């Protein structure tokens, strides 16, 4: 790589701005949003709903075009879908007419490549889906579908994995399990992960850094480093540090949302909202 590659972020978002043109006028979803994600890092993005989290992620994936600003992968600007970027979508987004094997082979089919069977077998085993290859998505639970989707996203060995609220539809136990699975996979592959969620606990448990976006138009409002060593156990979630961090982030998000109103009534309102 070129000089100064140590400083080049894996994924660099620079002044990302996205305007959606709608019938009722322009909607500014992202406003000069800048964010660096470094190699082998797990970064979570949280923020009030509608703040442009998904827009940001889709722009990182090259599926959306930014109105202005750039997104660079290893210093090179992304102009469209990139083979080194894998995506896990909201809900598993498996193709219901294909069984799990065929779903996992889908990326290779599109690329016209031979599936890397050893790697797929390794991933399938890693997520605990051995023996389910012939099953159709509807025969599996939401958690298992999402496991298959993770395998599919990692099948082409991307260097960046984008996850768009992947576990939002799962119950909290399955969700914790999936979070640990993501960490395991990360320990295994060290894939750089950008993780969008509206669960602050999930963000803290998984991430090296939690980025808080402001309400629309989205901009990076705050950033928190999560100092715990990996592998993390669920017990860290009960520590005071995590508790405080959770509340701080919650206040960032809730504060964002109520600020206009609070300003009218006086800032004391913010304090009273605290749980």
């Amino acid at each position, binding site marked *: 790589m070129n000089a100064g590659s140590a400083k080049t972020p894996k994924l660099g978002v620079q002044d990302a701005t996205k305007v959606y043109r709608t019938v009722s006028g322009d909607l500014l979803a992202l406003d000069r949003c800048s964010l660096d994600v470094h190699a082998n890092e797990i970064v979570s993005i949280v923020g009030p709903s509608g703040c442009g989290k998904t827009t940001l992620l889709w722009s990182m994936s090259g599926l959306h075009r930014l109105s202005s600003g750039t997104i660079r992968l290893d210093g090179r600007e992304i102009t469209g879908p990139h083979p080194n970027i894998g*995506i896990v*979508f909201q*809900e598993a*987004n498996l193709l219901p007419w294909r069984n799990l094997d065929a779903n996992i082979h889908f990326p290779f089919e*599109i690329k016209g490549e031979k599936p890397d069977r050893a790697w797929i077998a390794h991933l399938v*085993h890693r997520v605990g889906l051995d023996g*389910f290859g012939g099953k159709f998505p509807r025969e599996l639970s939401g958690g298992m579908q999402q496991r298959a989707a993770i395998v599919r996203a990692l099948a082409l060995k991307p260097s960046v994995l984008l996850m768009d609220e992947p576990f939002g539809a799962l119950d909290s136990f399955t969700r914790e399990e999936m979070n640990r699975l993501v960490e395991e996979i990360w320990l295994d592959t060290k894939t750089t992960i950008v993780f969008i969620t509206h669960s602050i606990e999930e963000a803290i448990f998984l991430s090296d850094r939690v980025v808080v976006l402001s309400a629309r138009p989205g901009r990076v409002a705050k950033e928190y480093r999560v100092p715990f060593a990996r592998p993390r156990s669920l017990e860290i979630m009960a520590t005071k540090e995590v508790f405080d961090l959770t509340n701080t982030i919650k206040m960032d998000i809730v504060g964002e949302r109520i600020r206009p109103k609070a300003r009218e009534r006086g800032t004391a309102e913010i304090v009273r909202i605290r749980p």
Partner: protein
Amino acid sequence: MSGGDAIPEFPKSKSGAKAGDGHEVSLTNLSAFASGPGIRSGAEVAAIIAVAVFIIGGIELALRLFNVPHYIMPGPSAIAYALYDEFPLIAPHLGYTLVELISGFSIGAIIGLMMAAVITQFPFAEKIVAPYILILVTTPMLALVPLLILRFGFGYTPRIIAVALAAGPMVMINAATGFRRVDSAKIALARSYGASTLQIFWRIRAPMALPMILVGLMIGAIFGLLTAVGAEMVGGGFGLGNRLTTYSSMIQMPQFFAVVLILSTLGILIYVLFFLIGKKWASWEA
């Protein structure tokens, strides 16, 4: 790897499956009665046969009891005998009708499918064409048969055209509904791997549309059969429809009903054919 995390969950009752996502298709609804528990038990088979015997026997008995003459309503036994006796004479006509149906339907279905695939790619064009498609769907193509006969004579040609005109729009309108079922997440998935428009069509749009396409093909085939028989009744000296007019004009009611029986069997076969195709290729939707 820590084992606890790798333990697969047991499939919960379709919690993740998109149960009823608003895309239920009439093919699967229609098939509800046939898709029950599969192989029926002996008692069920016996009950089904008993009811059939009771109904058919009851009709036979009632017709005989009230001395209903054959030219008004022949009994099941007379119809069965006529079917057996006349079948060698009817069989060629069945062949003619099948030729018309299969060729007309194939032409109509291929054109309908292609038009649906093309038109749904251009929403603007679709809006312009929609009213004409609606006219094609709602106009009974039988009405055009006399005209087609004037132009093309009494051979296969006007009938095949009529069948194609009847089946094509049905296939098209249903297939278009299928192609319009765009799931943007699935298309985004394909695009994220760099899929071309063509790949997206064949690997996402077409399979997603398949259940609706099958419904269209089934309705189209049944409309085609209707139109083929109707066209045969209007003019020309061959085909099952021609047999219907001939037998009724000669008051040969058992033979007439034998032909009706053949026609309903054809209709059922069309249904079963598409049902089985749907079960094999579109069962993921059920």
